[in-house]
């Protein structure tokens, strides 16, 4: 019975071994839509989250700078203890000389005020108030004062222009810093900026292979820096350009590299290994290197698979368990800057487009703490276009020099690689800081 049982097993096994039956035509139509799941909502959520983070940071920065600016610029009004019922509005940062107090104190509408009052407008001085300050008002000779009469420690807003000489008892000419009819307008700014940059990518064509590759790659903290020029169009807007150098790195984990393969490479072919990455395909440029992917069989294409050649038995020199892709770009930006707050601590929004030109493309492993050149990444677009949005803070040390801090989000519009099915749109977040000079 056992024999007969086994016999019938063989009959069915052999009889059905190559049996094929065409399935109904509509089966593929049902499989097709289920195969490629649309994962765009995930991408949209990620993008939304990133934008939310940037906006939140920007909002917090804006609030913080407003608070700080208000604190710096808020007026404190003090009561002159020697003149009852004659409250004197004295901007704390522009302390009037005692002698100048009567000029403002003659304001009829002034009520006794508490020690600290805010949001009271600075009164505009009229002829009677200006006369003690300026001698020979209406004199033909002498400088013209318009808008504000300002000394080192004193500001008197003027309701009209006056011509005359400063009263030396109240205002020493030596203290008069400038009394311009129109403030000097510095149109140009040059800045040197540098930023550590976190770099990653949105997978806009979600598929299994790209997802797997993304999971095996890690961004390396990168750096950007350069010189920026800005031209002030009007009080609020300015255009900015310049030249930046940015270096991006991408670590391919799980790929072990060995040197010394040259002695075993029969073909003496430089291009022995291809490594599939989200940024393109890495081609080895030396016949000395041997690569093994420890965690996936998909990424590396080679004739020298692990069953053909064992680097350990051949006693090759082990280098590292990951490769690093390195790309360097020269960036030509064209940004528009809008000044939200124009105070000692200024705040502005900056956004625009950049052209990024690939100037360096290399793949490294490590050797004795140094770099061992493995090859380069093929299929990388020579030009990448990026859009940027940032919130800039500007602390003015003086009228000409300021310190800048610009958290900036950058999104690369076209993928780094033109490879079919690999649509990774890199993005980066950096905090640019540096000094700027206005002239």
């Amino acid at each position: 019975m056992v024999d007969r049982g086994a016999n019938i097993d063989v009959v069915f096994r052999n009889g059905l071994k190559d049996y094929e039956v065409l399935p109904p035509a509509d089966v593929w139509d049902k499989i097709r839509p289920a195969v490629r799941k649309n994962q765009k909502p995930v991408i949209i959520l990620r993008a939304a989250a990133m934008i939310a983070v940037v906006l939140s940071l920007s909002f917090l920065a804006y609030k913080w700078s407003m608070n700080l600016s208000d604190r710096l610029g808020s007026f404190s009004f003090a009561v002159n203890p020697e003149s009852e019922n004659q409250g004197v509005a004295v901007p704390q940062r522009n302390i009037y000389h005692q002698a100048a107090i009567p000029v403002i104190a003659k304001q009829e509408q002034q009520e006794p005020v508490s020690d600290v009052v805010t949001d009271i407008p600075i009164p505009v001085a009229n002829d009677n108030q200006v006369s003690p300050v300026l001698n020979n008002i209406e004199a033909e000779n002498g400088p013209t004062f318009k808008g504000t009469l300002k000394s080192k420690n004193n500001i008197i807003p003027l309701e009209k222009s006056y011509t005359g000489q400063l009263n030396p008892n109240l205002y020493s000419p030596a203290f008069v810093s400038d009394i311009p009819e129109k403030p000097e307008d510095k149109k140009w700014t040059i800045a040197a900026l540098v930023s550590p940059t976190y770099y990653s990518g949105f997978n806009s064509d979600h598929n299994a292979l790209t997802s797997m590759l993304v999971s095996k790659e890690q961004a390396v903290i990168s750096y950007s820096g350069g010189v920026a020029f800005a031209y002030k169009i009007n009080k609020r807007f300015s255009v900015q350009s310049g030249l930046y150098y940015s270096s991006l790195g991408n670590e391919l984990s799980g790929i072990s590299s060995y040197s010394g393969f040259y002695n075993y490479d029969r073909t003496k072919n430089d291009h022995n290994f291809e490594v599939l990455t989200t940024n393109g395909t890495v081609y080895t440029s030396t016949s000395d290197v041997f690569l093994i992917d420890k965690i996936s069989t998909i990424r590396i294409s080679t004739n020298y698979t692990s069953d053909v050649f064992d680097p350990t038995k051949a006693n090759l020199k082990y280098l590292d368990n990951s490769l690093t892709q390195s790309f360097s770009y020269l960036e030509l930006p064209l940004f528009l800057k809008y000044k939200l707050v124009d105070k000692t601590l200024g705040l502005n929004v900056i956004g625009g487009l950049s052209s990024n030109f690939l100037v360096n493309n290399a793949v490294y492993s490590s050797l004795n703490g140094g770099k061992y050149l493995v090859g380069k990444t093929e299929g990388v677009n020579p030009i990448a276009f990026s859009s940027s949005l940032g919130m800039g803070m500007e602390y003015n040390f003086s009228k000409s020099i300021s310190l800048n801090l610009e958290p900036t989000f950058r999104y690369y519009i076209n993928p780094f690689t033109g490879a079919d099915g690999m649509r990774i749109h890199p993005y980066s977040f950096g905090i640019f800081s540096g000094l700027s000079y206005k002239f």
Partner: protein
Amino acid sequence: MPEIKNIINGCLLGNRRDQELLYRRYAAKLYAVCLQYSGNDEEARDILQEGFIKIFENLVHYKYEGSFDGWVRRIVVNTALEKYRSKHNLYRIDDIDQIPEQNAEPDNEDYAGLGARDLMEIIRELPPRYRIVFNLFAIEGYSHKEISGMMSISEGTSKSNLSRARVILQRRVGSYTGLKKNLING
């Protein structure tokens, strides 16, 4: 014909053409497996459909160890098993007494006249559990221990089911070949 590795990579990249190419290459072979494990065509279509979706979803985990044909077949067989497990409460294991005993066990030479289509028809007439145990043991080569784990039955039950499946098949083959002979002889 493109290499299977290229087709797989194309599928992993979401390339529609390669996905369809993979389906066209394996659909007929795997549909035969589905028919072998199912009692009716509708169920076989469902298994094929679900099986292919799993193949595409799990393609990224394929390690190029062993043949791809074997890998896709295992997925479809597992899908058929899941289908069976989800429905097994609905099936009643037919009692062996209910199988009509028409002919004596056939001689070896009787098997020679049976084509693949005949064998498929015969195997599909088995009660579901017998059919699956026979397929797993005789066609796929699993042991009773493995089958007991896959089907949540004891090894003894697996052996018993196989034994009964063989008996039924032998009888069916006998009746089938007898019927054929009768038809040929007029």
